[in-house]
């Protein structure tokens, strides 16, 4: 299942936040969206997830979601959004409970995703006992459990320290390599974008417009922290963004 944005513009009241965005999200790829803060990245993601309607333009779904997919468009939140009163197992199980699955089927799915995210040993822990990185792994496990057609990730690693972020990026790459998934990955961190993105979409400052789409052909598994090709791409992205970011920053200060 592919997603397509067709000349999408969006206003909040008088303020235009997105201007004429046309973008393809092909299945099996990770599309990273980068841009200065306030440029409408989260808004764009909410539209893709059906939580918001664009003022003009259309959000299209091309083709049907796979047969066994319980929740085609699935979010991963920056602040994890785990239920603190449920264990790791319970949090993953939550999203399976409304789909008429038998207890055994649910247990099998939960065991599978916990194994894939290396959380099996923590199945009975409560969120308060977990570190930030572990919590986000639980959220990823929960998203995988519904077998999404597209994962919508809004700065999923931004609440984590940089070491944890590296580890989780490796986990995401490993997950994708074992079983490619489609994802839209919003970030303001260019290093994340060049590690995870097959396609990197650069937005301008508000109103967000498509500045450039960079394609990276290097397989995810071969990308390493500090790789010269990736460094060069990151430099290129930064040169695209730096003036925008500076301007956006000044704009916020001036109100």
């Amino acid at each position, binding site marked *: 299942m592919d997603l397509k944005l067709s000349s999408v513009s969006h206003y909040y009241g008088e303020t235009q936040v997105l201007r004429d965005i046309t973008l393809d999200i092909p299945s099996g790829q990770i599309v990273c969206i980068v841009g200065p803060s306030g440029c409408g990245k989260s808004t764009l993601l909410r539209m893709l997830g059906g939580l918001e309607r664009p003022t003009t333009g259309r959000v299209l779904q091309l083709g049907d979601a796979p047969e066994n997919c*319980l929740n085609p468009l699935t*979010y991963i939140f920056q602040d994890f*959004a785990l239920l603190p009163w449920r264990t790791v197992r319970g949090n993953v199980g*939550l999203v399976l409970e409304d789909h008429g699955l038998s207890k055994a089927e649910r247990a099998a799915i939960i065991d599978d995703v916990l194994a894939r995210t290396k959380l099996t040993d923590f199945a009975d822990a409560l969120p308060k006992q977990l570190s930030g990185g572990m919590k986000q792994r639980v959220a990823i496990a929960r998203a995988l459990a519904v077998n999404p057609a597209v994962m919508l990730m809004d700065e999923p690693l931004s609440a984590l320290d940089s070491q944890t972020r590296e580890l989780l990026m490796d986990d995401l790459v490993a997950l994708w390599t074992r079983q490619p998934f489609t994802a839209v990955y919003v970030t303001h961190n260019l290093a994340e974008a060049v590690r995870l993105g097959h396609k990197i979409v650069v937005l301008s400052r508000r109103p967000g417009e498509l500045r450039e789409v960079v394609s990276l052909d290097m397989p995810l598994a071969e990308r390493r922290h500090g790789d010269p090709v990736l460094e060069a791409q990151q430099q290129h992205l930064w040169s695209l963004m730096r003036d925008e970011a500076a301007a956006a920053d000044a704009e916020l200060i001036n109100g």
Partner: protein
Amino acid sequence: MADLTESTAREVTFRGGGFQPGHRRGVGLAVFVVLILLAEWGTRSGFISPLTLPRPSDVLLTFQELYQSRMLFKHLVPSVTRLAIGALIGASLGVGIGVLIGLFSLVRAGLVPLVAAIFPIPKIALLPLFVIWFGIDEASKYALIAFGTFTPTVVATYAAVDNVDRVLIRMGQSFGLGWWSIVSKIVVPGAMPGILSGLRISLTIAIILLVAAEMLGAEYGIGAYILQAGSLYDLERLFAGVVILSLLGVAVSAAVAAVERRVLNWRV
């Protein structure tokens, strides 16, 4: 900056203390013991006249007598039954309607002013009305206690529902959970801390109303017992009754605390 040796070094002054309520076991008990000992000493030495305050040891004797004549249970059982039934009705209605107010803006617009209007009414003043509506028997007592528990529970519950983390609700929606699942698995558990602390207050109010209800037309019950003792100026029995009420309050509070520890073990 030349002579930085150990000899000229000073400790950095610590100024980070306080503002951290911690557990101090036994202090509460000590306050009770000291007050009781003071009363005992005062009444024995004649510093406090027996008409002002009964001697604590006499109250204890009265209590013992009450226990041995099995009258204690004759009074306690109906009281606890009334408290349990009345509070159960009031609290469940309160939680139910509080959740509805929290969820639906129409219900909120309709009921919040009503709740605000009945909250400040001293429910005791309505006892005669309840007697007319429900009869002089148990039903009017249940109604009074239920009504008194209802209002604080409603207010605590809808405030607690308002405070449930919206991100969690969005999460539920984004995974396509049904309405009922979101309410029962996200909203209500998330509101539980607020509901339980509201329950502490409403159950205390329930005890106050229990006594009021029993002072009007009850043969047995702590309230009736206190009323009888009061009209005879039998201070020992009056105080024995009051002590029972205090113990009841402590027991209720301990019960809520136990439920909190079990249900809210997920809190950081």
